[in-house]
């Protein structure tokens, strides 16, 4: 299923359409006045209201069930697209005011031009979200759907264009497998920027695909963790466990493991046991993990036990585990409610800096607000971009930055005119 000029077309027409884009894709941004955020906001708001009214329940409900998204969470997501929230987002990210510098130079924001969005499939409406961000910044958007896409994004974008036909020349959706590198190369050649979502492999592939003069904006692989003082309360640990069970550790912002501020193995073990008991009990009231995933992790953990030296300790119960590790590395967990616990004294926090752009969210668990401030300050300096309390690692707030930057700014460029000039 592909989308072109507001029409849903069969895949068989894909090559012909892509070939025709060579001369036409960039036309809307070259010929016209930039697409205003207002046009996009109006359409998004109308669509969001219709979704909230239940007009799309039959389409949307199955996806919510599949991804274990509650009605409340979903409503929160949809509300991000209402007028109030989008205006707020644009006011923060776009800085659209025309500023004159030193009385001589006038500054104005323009879209990059044409964006190719290479979407990932972990959140179902994410591809559409990425395109909407491209539209808000005024770009023409070409979306490459992820493998196994459910069709929800195409449906949403189709409805958006039906509400605001002006957008029809600004949105193309294609179903090109990642293995079709020639087609992807042709699409990439059309673009001023490639927006890539996904793991390191996807980001590397996008960089290979991009010409030297094409900007690559990557929303890539991220690792998030908790940093705990020994005085962290059971309530905090419980909120952390809830967020681990709620996201199954699949999001960039999900906690993969806990670093404990200690050098003592005994204190680490006590902490791990305490968290394990809490995680076990939270797990029992959370929706069950996919059976095959649970089985896979059970085998991995059993294998780890066989391979382990006696220093390792694994606490496992019905698909949930806490593994005591001896190293101090930030790493991915087994996912699906399986957490590592490592010792990392506060004066060694700087060692995480080597993870650079992989760092994302860290939550701090402590009862002491002075300690919290100090740790937060270190975390911010080493590269963490979101510092939260236990239950808020994966919260979404309108107007918040994305991976340490603002998407709409990344999709824009600043043009400076001499004041005397009458050029736009």
């Amino acid at each position, binding site marked *: 299923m592909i989308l072109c000029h507001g029409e849903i077309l069969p895949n068989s027409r894909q090559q012909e359409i892509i070939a025709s884009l060579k001369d036409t894709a960039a036309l809307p941004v070259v010929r016209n006045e930039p697409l205003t955020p207002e046009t996009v906001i109006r359409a998004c708001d109308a669509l969001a209201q219709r979704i909230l009214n239940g007009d799309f329940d039959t389409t949307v409900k199955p996806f919510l069930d599949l991804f274990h998204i509650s009605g409340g969470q979903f409503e929160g997501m949809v509300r991000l697209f209402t007028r109030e929230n989008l205006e707020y987002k644009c006011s923060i990210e776009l800085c659209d005011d025309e500023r004159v510098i030193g009385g001589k130079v006038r500054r104005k924001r323009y879209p990059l031009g044409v964006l190719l969005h290479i979407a*990932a499939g972990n959140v179902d409406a994410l591809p559409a979200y990425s395109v909407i961000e491209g539209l808000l910044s005024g770009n023409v958007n070409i979306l490459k759907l992820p493998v196994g896409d459910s069709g929800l994004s195409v449906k949403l974008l189709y409805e958006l264009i039906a509400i605001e036909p002006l957008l029809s020349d600004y949105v193309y959706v294609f179903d090109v497998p990642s293995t079709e590198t020639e087609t992807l190369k042709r699409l990439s050649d059309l673009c001023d920027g490639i927006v890539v979502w996904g793991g390191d492999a996807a980001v590397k592939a996008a960089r290979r695909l991009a010409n030297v003069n094409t900007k690559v904006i990557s929303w890539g692989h991220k690792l998030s963790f908790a940093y705990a003082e020994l005085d962290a309360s059971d309530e905090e640990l419980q909120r952390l466990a809830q967020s681990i069970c709620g996201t199954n550790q699949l999001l960039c912002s999900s906690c993969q493991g806990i670093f404990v501020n200690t050098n003592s193995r005994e204190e680490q073990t006590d902490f791990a046991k305490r968290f394990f008991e809490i995680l076990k009990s939270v797990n029992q009231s959370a929706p069950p993990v996919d059976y095959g995933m649970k089985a896979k992790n059970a*085998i991995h953990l059993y294998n780890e036990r066989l391979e382990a030296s006696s220093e390792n300790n694994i606490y496992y119960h019905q698909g949930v585990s806490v593994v005591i590790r001896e190293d101090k590395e930030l790493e991915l967990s087994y996912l699906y409610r399986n957490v590592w616990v490592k010792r990392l004294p506060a004066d060694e926090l700087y060692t995480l800096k080597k993870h650079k752009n992989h760092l994302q969210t860290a939550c701090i668990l402590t009862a002491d607000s002075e300690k919290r401030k100090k740790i937060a300050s270190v975390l911010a300096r080493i590269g963490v971009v979101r510092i939260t309390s236990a239950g808020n690692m994966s919260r979404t707030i309108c107007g918040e930055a994305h991976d340490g930057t603002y998407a709409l700014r990344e999709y824009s460029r600043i043009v400076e005119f001499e004041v005397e000039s009458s050029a736009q």
Partner: protein
Amino acid sequence: MKYTNRLFNQKEIYDAGATNRLFAAAIRENAQFHYENCPEYKRILDGFGFRPEELHAYADLARLPFLPTLYFKRHHLQSVAPGKQIIKATSSGTSGSMSKIGFDVKSLNLGRKMVVQVGRYHRLWSATPVNYIIFGYQPTRENKTAISKTAFGFTFFAPALSRTYALESTENGYALSWDRVIKALEKCEKSRFPMRTIGFPAYTFFLLRDLKEKGIRFQMPKGSMVTLGGGWKQFYAEKADKQTFYSLVKEVLGIEESNVIEFFGAVEHPILYADCRYHHFHIPVYSRVIIRSPDDFSPLPNGQAGILNLLTPMMQSAPLCSVMTDDLGVLHTEQCPCGAKSPWLEIIGRVGIRDIVTCAAGAEEYLKE
């Protein structure tokens, strides 16, 4: 090896219940051998505080610590000297890494006895020559995957007039050659001798679907068979409903469902499972199945889905007495109209098959297998 030898000399191969005591004795004997000859196996059993002599009765088998296939992918375990391992096989490496298992003469002899019996029961042996079409790899000196060796081995069930491989070894690795296979099928149809296909179910399915879409139909000579082996591998997501598959075989090749036979086995459990005419994998006397819960690995009652743990005393060269696979399965005890008394095994998929697509995971590259 006396109990193991007796087990592999059984004439009634699908009456597992009648050999339970013998099987337990053979496993004890086998586990004891590995315990004494494979230091790593000893370390693992010692780690669980388990000694092979604790296996007194059949019910004790579930207590024998099992080794996951994952472990064999990372560690090369051997209980006989490398010089005595005359064949080295590797798994097909669906998930990127491969198990390496050596076979010694004694193990191979037991395997040969098993293949003779299984082949006889399923009427695979035939003096009539056949044309083979193999939907798999052409075996080469470099290709040690068990599936290509097994596929080649199967071509000895009946004398081979010809062998055509779908995946042919070329200068640039393996290449899929549909055209050649289609030409070979055309030749088979005109032959007065039967045809047998061998290979991955997925490739067989895709080829037949392709032929159907092109409107190509054959009526293969009487006695022709479609044999399947190697599992559905990466294609579980597209796994064809078996009945659809049999209808496709009938429609495209003109071969009856009763002449479609599927095999199951693994490098880490080299027992030949063949399905009956009702397409059930009955447990042969050489093997036992324990379905375990992912919660705590406790054995689950028959009829419940869980992780598949396979046991056999066949191997001397590597401690494969109890192996935990990556498969999810169900053990059925309902009476099968085919008459085999053993329960039958249904494979329902692989663990963790639901693709993890996540920005946190950065895909499987980070999931160390």
